[in-house]
């Protein structure tokens, strides 16, 4: 009993302690790519931290105490949305009790609201696996989507931290210029791949495929979210006969055994593409992420 009272008093004292006058805007992001984007747009004005590491599957993390504490202190929560984080984000928001970042508030930013979602299912049934009723949420693999989200996120930062609005806008303009030039360079680099067929582990690359003109003809997962099974892989192997598949794609958080097996049986190169910032060496920021992605894809089969 006494311990409880002492804890409460100590915590109240901690909470009442004054905060530094020029504290950076606390930005909580669900995925590393949005933390990288917030850092590009805000620089020293923001302190952006991602809930997931590149090695973690953003579908399946838990509403850990550390994340509740981070959401509690956040001024802005930036997530992909489209139900990608449905297993943990609603719980974090409810547990943390931070009014400013609840859905619909200016402190809640949903990236999927600013791009056109692909793969919107006409019907949803759990027998189809872990399907997302609002469309495929893996929007960050098309660099043009990053540009759209950047413009909206910069405006949101400017709105929340109005004293520094001019800085956010000028940083955003600078980023947009550099990004536009890079997108043109990447688009030219992937042009020779147009029309080529690919196999992916999870249905997580449709935006990349749409941008680069690739055709996805199979997945290692039998249904979205279900681990690859021997029966499904055998079926897939059969199905690939007569097809000229350019590459088998997976992300770093997916087990490599299935793609290695399929690669060894078919001599199709299998690669790990950076699905986010920091996921593979060289993908240290958003530019690096797409540099590595484009290079890996174009060098996979010379």
């Amino acid at each position: 009993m006494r311990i409880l009272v002492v804890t409460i008093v100590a915590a109240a004292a901690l909470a009442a302690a004054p905060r530094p006058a020029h504290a950076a805007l606390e930005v909580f992001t669900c995925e590393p790519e949005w933390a990288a984007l917030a850092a590009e747009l805000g620089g020293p004005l923001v302190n952006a931290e991602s809930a997931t590491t590149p090695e973690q599957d953003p579908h399946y993390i838990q509403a850990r105490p550390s994340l509740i504490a981070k959401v509690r202190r956040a001024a802005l929560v930036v997530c992909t949305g489209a139900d990608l984080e449905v297993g943990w984000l609603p719980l974090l928001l409810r547990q943390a009790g931070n009014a400013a970042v609840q859905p619909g508030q200016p402190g809640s930013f949903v990236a999927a609201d600013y791009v056109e979602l692909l793969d919107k299912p006409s019907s949803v049934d759990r027998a189809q696996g872990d399907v997302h009723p609002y469309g495929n949420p893996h929007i960050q693999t098309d660099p043009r989507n990053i540009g759209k989200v950047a413009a909206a996120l910069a405006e949101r930062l400017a709105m929340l931290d109005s004293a520094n609005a001019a800085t956010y806008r000028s940083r955003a303009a600078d980023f947009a210029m550099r990004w536009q030039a890079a997108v043109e360079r990447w688009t030219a680099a992937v042009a020779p791949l147009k029309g080529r067929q690919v196999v992916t582990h999870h249905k997580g690359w449709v935006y990349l495929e749409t941008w680069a003109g690739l055709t996805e003809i199979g997945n290692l997962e039998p249904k979205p979210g279900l681990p690859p099974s021997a029966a499904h892989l055998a079926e897939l192997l059969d199905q690939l006969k007569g097809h000229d598949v350019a590459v088998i794609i997976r992300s770093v958080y997916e087990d490599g055994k299935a793609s290695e097996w399929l690669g060894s049986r078919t001599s199709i190169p299998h690669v790990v593409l950076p699905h986010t910032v920091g996921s593979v060496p060289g993908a240290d920021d958003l530019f690096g992420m797409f540099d590595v992605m484009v290079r890996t894809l174009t060098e996979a089969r010379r």
Partner: protein
Amino acid sequence: MERYWRAAMAAPFLFPICGAALAQQQVSGNSFNPAISLILNGHYASYSRNPAEYQLSGFLLDEEAGLASEGLSLDETELSISSNIDDKFYGSLSTSLEMSDGETSVDVEEAYVETLTLPKGLKVKAGKFLSDVGYLNPIHAHAWDFNDAPLAYVAMLNTAYSDAGVQLRWVVPTTLFIELGGELLRGDSFPAADGAQSSGTGAWTMFAHVGGDVGDTSSWRAGLSRLSADANGRASPFDGGSAVFTGASDLTIADFVWKWAKNGNPRDRNYVIQAEYLHRSEGGNLAVSTIGAGDESGRYTGTQDGYYVQGVYQFRPRWRVGARYDRLDASNTVGVTAPTPLAASRRPSRVSAMSDFSNSEFSRFRLQLSRDDSGPSTDDQVVLQYIMSLGAHGAHRF
């Protein structure tokens, strides 16, 4: 002719309007339907002792306490409905449908509203809800790692304390997770009883939780809670009679959980170690009626404690194994001569092992073996169970 002309003129204007309408999401009446989820579960159980004689040496249990029914049976079907009510409130209802002896009963497990936008990180919850004391108490039975509650929870909380009341909760704005809270409750369910006699405020709780991460792979939470309850005529049947307790019941719980996952990705490989210690003091009047000795009453004071330690390891996607050890201890002074379970003949203990397989995150099959030494003699238990959830994607607590 006139009509055609008009249609032709209007067509270019109509088309863009139709296009815009189609591009927007269609909003119909059921777009605002709340999230609905249904848990279907059932089991097969086999016991070496007669489950009707279930008791825990040294403890008086709730009227409904006992083992899951023997043989094949349907477990409580849980239907949950939840949604944001508006921009300021969230509401949730969990009902359980239970079939026993050919009759179906409906129970309200939880029905509460919660604030979303109170300032300073405060939250208020009102209604009937699972108390936030301990680690396991607020977790619904379908999300447990074993098919039954720890012995200490059976003995002191009748598996989980849920009651009508209000809760105030506050997450402290620190880098370390610190959450403090308290509840004022009606006091109608075990270990409280008949809250009306305590002006409808027969129980209160306080709890503190701290937690954090260690690297990218591990996270932990520790908690300390207190539950003070008025037991106004709390009835406990036992083999050969029944007892009615009127007095105060004070429970303190210390809990700890440690979770590890390879790369922080619980889907592939992970383990969870969890332990709780419960300490209870009860004091008051005990009225006992037995078939042999008739009715008598006297003073009862009890100091009881119990703990469990469990570990669950997911060694490959979809497969888990787990082990749990339970222990209880009671030191009671009872001013009646008739024999009751309070006269502890042995210290209850139990060892359990389980393995489960989840086809997806929505379906699970589990086999559990237990050796239960908590009654007068050893009981070997085998339970095979399925738990399936359908409907809205529920988020599980840490």
